């Protein structure tokens, strides 16, 4: 097991490296993203749906909360505001606007804000809203103006500005044309300052008609082809969440590259990360006395002279076969350079040549950049259509960044798909699958096993069918990350205990057992001989592992000194296991920073060879 552990740790380091690779300089950060929720607080919003369905207001607050928490996790530097209109009470910076209630002005969301949004949810929330804000007259123009002030009060540079209106009233001013006009003017002022206005319209009896009023309020789609305005109002939380999520994050290309088909045929494309592994953020160091963050400075200096070392006074080295090989720093970089960044088409292959498991990194997404090379979208679109029609993928050599060695990728065509609500659920473009090199594949020696009989297979089919469910990728929260943030939330708000997190990737054992009923036993009777217990051996093992996990330690593994010296002499230290090497380091008083096998070997070698 020791080997497994060492191996596992390497794995972790690998992942860190990988992350560095992906996040490092992916896109230029040009400022903060900002998002204003402008929510209708009129009486209509609080009407509960049939069968106790949550009110539109309640639904909106749930969405706002989920955006708050997701911003905290994935982009805490984004600014978010929550403003109500159609209220009885007014609360805004200079109190110059009636019927507008700025609940949260533009700022980074924190624990307190999440709590405050929570307070507006459900039955209690409706009561609280009635008490603090009430429902009054509506002037969307004033509300928009107030939002404009929120934006302009911000001293930070904003890169992406979005405003989402949540309402179930298609004629908020009930035909008051002066107010309508003012709202239109204010909306266009906002749009001119770069704010994108979206409408998240909610279900109301008789349907929501976008045409008479809101069509002029919302921003025009980026180009005419975009499915800009969703004509169908939302009536489900899930839909609303999806619509908000799709707009809430600004899409940024990780890289803009040329897809080169041949000499002089360059299609400009952007690469987008559609799935980025969310990780627990790194800890921040705080000064014990004041809890203020401290900054860390790392310096490289000469051991003997104590003077700081300039980059030119440093070289890089690796040791192989007991020889230290030294290179200049720029040589180390230049070794990695093969070609300039870009995608280069090698050829095409039928889809069945792409193995499910032949990929080594999360896939990314490719979409044309008409703004870089005119005509890109047309050629890209033609390639996409034809690849998809003929069921082939394009094989390309890919250099994603400067001084990056090439990788081969499969461009897998993906046609656009929209749901009944005309919401795009798969965008058009190529999925980029990173393919493994020979080094990345491990040779396996599969054990020979008898195949199951058709009766056995059929029984299992029954089991499989009993446990069918519809997989949605957004259904599973990461319990590790969720727990971490719940803990922080509890500490930030001085709560007694963190809120419970439901582990969504835990099998619901009772439900499964119930659904299977006698099928499990029937299957076991078919495949296992009487008295066979698949769990017997490993259960015993696990028990001892738990008992011995912390308390018991393995007897010290010591190697006599002369044997060690012989290993150093022959360069055979690698044959010893990590615990033995660690023990040897202790024995000789060798201090090591790392725990990797190679580091231990290096440290011992330097010590004992001297």
């Amino acid at each position, binding site marked *: 097991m020791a080997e497994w552990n060492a191996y596992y740790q390497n794995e972790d380091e690998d992942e860190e490296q990988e992350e560095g690779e992906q996040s490092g300089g992916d896109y230029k950060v040009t400022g903060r993203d900002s998002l204003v929720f402008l929510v209708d607080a009129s009486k209509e919003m609080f009407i509960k749906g049939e069968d106790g369905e949550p009110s539109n207001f309640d639904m909106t607050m749930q969405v706002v909360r989920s955006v708050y928490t997701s911003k905290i996790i994935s982009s805490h530097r984004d600014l978010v505001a929550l403003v109500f209109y159609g209220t009885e009470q007014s609360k805004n910076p200079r109190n110059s606007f009636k019927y507008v209630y700025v609940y949260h002005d533009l700022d980074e969301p924190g624990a307190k804000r999440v709590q405050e949004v929570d307070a507006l949810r459900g039955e209690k929330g409706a009561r609280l809203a009635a008490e603090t804000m009430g429902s009054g007259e509506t002037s969307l123009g004033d509300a928009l103006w107030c939002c404009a002030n929120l934006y302009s009060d911000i001293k930070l540079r904003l890169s992406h500005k979005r405003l989402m209106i949540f309402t179930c009233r298609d004629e908020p001013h009930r035909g008051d044309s002066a107010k309508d006009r003012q709202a239109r003017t204010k909306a266009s002022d906002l749009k001119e300052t770069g704010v994108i206005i979206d409408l998240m319209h909610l279900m109301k009896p008789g349907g929501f008609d976008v045409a008479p009023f809101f069509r002029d309020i919302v921003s025009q789609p980026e180009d005419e082809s975009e499915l800009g305005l969703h004509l169908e109002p939302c009536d489900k939380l899930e839909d609303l969440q999806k619509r908000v999520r799709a707009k809430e994050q600004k899409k940024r290309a990780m890289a803009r590259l040329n897809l080169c088909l041949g000499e002089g045929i360059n299609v400009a494309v952007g690469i987008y990360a559609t799935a980025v592994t969310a990780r627990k953020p790194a800890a921040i160091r705080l*000064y014990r006395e004041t809890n203020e963050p401290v900054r860390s400075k790392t310096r490289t200096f000469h051991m003997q002279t104590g003077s700081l070392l300039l980059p030119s006074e440093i070289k890089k080295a*690796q040791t192989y076969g007991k020889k230290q090989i030294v290179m200049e720093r720029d040589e180390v970089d230049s070794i990695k350079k093969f070609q300039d960044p870009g995608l280069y088409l090698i050829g095409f292959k039928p889809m069945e040549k792409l193995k499910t498991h032949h990929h080594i990194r999360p896939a990314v997404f490719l979409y044309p950049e008409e703004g870089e090379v005119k005509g890109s979208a047309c050629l890209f679109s033609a390639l996409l259509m034809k690849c998809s029609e003929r069921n082939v993928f394009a094989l390309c050599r890919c250099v994603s960044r400067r001084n990056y060695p090439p990788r081969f990728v499969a461009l897998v065509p993906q046609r656009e798909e929209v749901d009944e609500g005309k919401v795009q659920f798969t965008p058009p473009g190529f999925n980029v699958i990173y393919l493994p090199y020979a080094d990345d594949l491990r040779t396996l020696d599969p054990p020979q096993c008898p195949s199951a009989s058709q009766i056995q297979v059929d029984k299992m089919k029954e089991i499989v069918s009993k446990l069918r469910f519809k997989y949605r990728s957004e259904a599973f929260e990461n319990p590790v990350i969720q727990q971490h943030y719940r803990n922080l939330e509890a500490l930030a708000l001085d709560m007694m205990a963190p809120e419970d997190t439901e582990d969504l990737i835990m099998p619901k054992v009772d439900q499964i057992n119930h659904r299977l009923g006698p099928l499990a036993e029937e299957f076991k009777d078919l495949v296992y001989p009487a008295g066979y217990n*698949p769990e017997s051996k490993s259960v015993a093992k696990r028990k001892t592992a738990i008992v011995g996990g912390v308390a018991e330690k393995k007897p010290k593994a010591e190697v006599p000194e002369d044997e060690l010296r012989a290993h150093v002499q022959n360069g055979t230290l690698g044959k010893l296991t990590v615990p033995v090497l660690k023990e040897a380091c202790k024995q000789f008083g060798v201090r090591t920073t790392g725990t990797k096998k190679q580091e231990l070997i290096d440290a011992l070698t330097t010590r004992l060879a001297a």
Partner: protein
Amino acid sequence: CCWDPLVLCMDVGFSMSNSAPGEEPPFELAKKVIQKFVQRQVFAENKDELALVLFGTDSTKNPLDRDGQYQNITVHRHLMIPDFELLEEIENQVHPESQQADWMDALVVCMDLLQTETKGKKFDRLNVALLTDLSTQANQDHLDVIIENLKQAGITLQFFLPFPAEDDEEGGGDSDRRGPGHPGTGKGLSREQKESLDLVKHVMLSLDEEDGLDQVYTFRDAIEQLCMFKRIERRPMAWPCQLTIGSCLSIRIVGYKAVTEERLKKMWVTVDAQSNQKEDVKRETVYCLDDDNETEVKKDDTIQGFRYGSDIVPFSKVDQDQMKYKHDGKCFAVLGFTKQNLVFSWGQHAGVALSALIRALDELQMVAIVRYAYDRRSNPQVGAAFPCVKQDYECLMYVQLPFMEDLRQFTFPSLENNKKLSPSDTQLSAVDSLIDSMMLVQKDDDDADQKDIFKVHHIPNPAFQRHFQCLHHRAVNPGTPLPPMEPWLKAALERPDVISERCQAPLEEIKRKFPLIEVEKKKKLKTSAQIFGKDAEEPDAKKAKGDEEEDYNLADIAEGSVTSVRIRGQLTHRIEQLLSNKNTHYYMKSITCIQAFREQSVKLGNADLYNSYLQSLKRSIPNRRLEVFWDLLVQGMLSRITAGFLSNRPFLERRLHFHIIAAVPSAEDTGDVDDLVCVCDFLAFKYLTDVP
């Protein structure tokens, strides 16, 4: 526990130096084979021990040297892990010598060496590689005993010869490929060589009746195959677990990591450029407070915290461990986000059970969504287990799936529904013929098999190959520049020649049918107006705000780089530093600093420091010939002022703006000041009138 000890046994006798004019002597070729092989072993950091035995040497040095037997055979190096020392020895100490020795005797010396030096050690297989031209008559007296011994000891043999073992009976292609590179192919072999060759064949076929002759190579083929550095090989490790379905049904399985992005095991170590010693370099991290003096604090005086949105929450390691997500440990399969496992069945009964699951999934075309945790310390994942049914085995393939937190849901404009972008029929057919011409998988009409001419998973990682090539070069030729990339490696990454030829015409057609025009990029921002956005030039708020993303903005730079520079004393110091470089780039940086200084002053409610600094800076402008900088500064501040008015900033800040205006050199620049006032008035007017 598992390695393969190997003895390299090389003929250095005088016949090895014979060659036809213009051809490399067999000795040189054999030496190259050995060098290449040892290099690979050194860089692969292979634990396989290696010995070197030379025969045909002038002297004799081997344990069997007795009574005039086993003469002219030298054990040059005993079983050891190969290193650069060995490479240097091969380079400098292995020369052609003037004796001849019996290769069969040399083989016996190798066998003896293997048996004595591996006594009591565990190993997989023992190997002997013999490199010779077979010019000496071999003593066949104990042939059967030797063969029997080889078999019993489990020693495998490889022969490397200057000529192929078999004449190309099939003729044609093969001989073409080998070409004239093999001197004496078929013809020109001496009687001794012919006899020895028969003996080699006899030995090899006795060891392995079917494929024995596959282990007889020519020097040239070997060199070609050895040019590649060894690919990283890691033994897949078994991960036994149970696949559970509810609590009533479990199947014992064992997982293996099948595909993973390998990385080089070694990292670069920083060394001192003079001494090349890593011990001379020390890296140190210090912590300091975010105050004017950057007061250093001890690491022990710091605690751990985390960000929760705008809050920073102190959260000690102990608390964190106590409160963190915990789970029951190991449950069904894998490591990492993109990585996968093959899940093979474990034990026969489990085998049937798993087989039933795999086949059921396969027949239903379904996958299992599973929770996988490697062990108690690792984070659990959610993933999909795909059925995989192959001719000789069945398995489940695990692929990790993203969590909700990992997903970015983007929508992209439609391509097909856009009339302006949609390709015409002739354009589409041009793409069609391009695809036809570039198919990498060829279907043979008479053969159901498809031939894939570009298998990525057969290409060694070029980054590793290049890395080792350069390291090797530097080790062997210190002081010389790094070599160019190996031609074979370059070629391996290119479009295959057949494809390049075939797609020529279709590509031309694509070029004609699809006009591609590079959109001219905006020139690098130069003038102050461009640097600070249009509002410095045009008093039009609308235009200025419209396209902010493109603009180069002060606040941005200030945020990125200046917050790290401490305020006041340090800021002014930095400004002066930057100003010593007379260059727009540095001017802009110092303006950013001034901007940050100003904002900081606003925050602290103390404008005096800032104003007095600006005054003194202004006075020094003519002496320091910084007029250009001052121009930029004034215009830059202008744009900030307009922004300030737009946003109804507090009075204090507005006062500050006027201080800046006051700080503009007056005599020749009055025009600017007037313009400035106009700008402010205009904007203030527009917005003020609108207030309800």
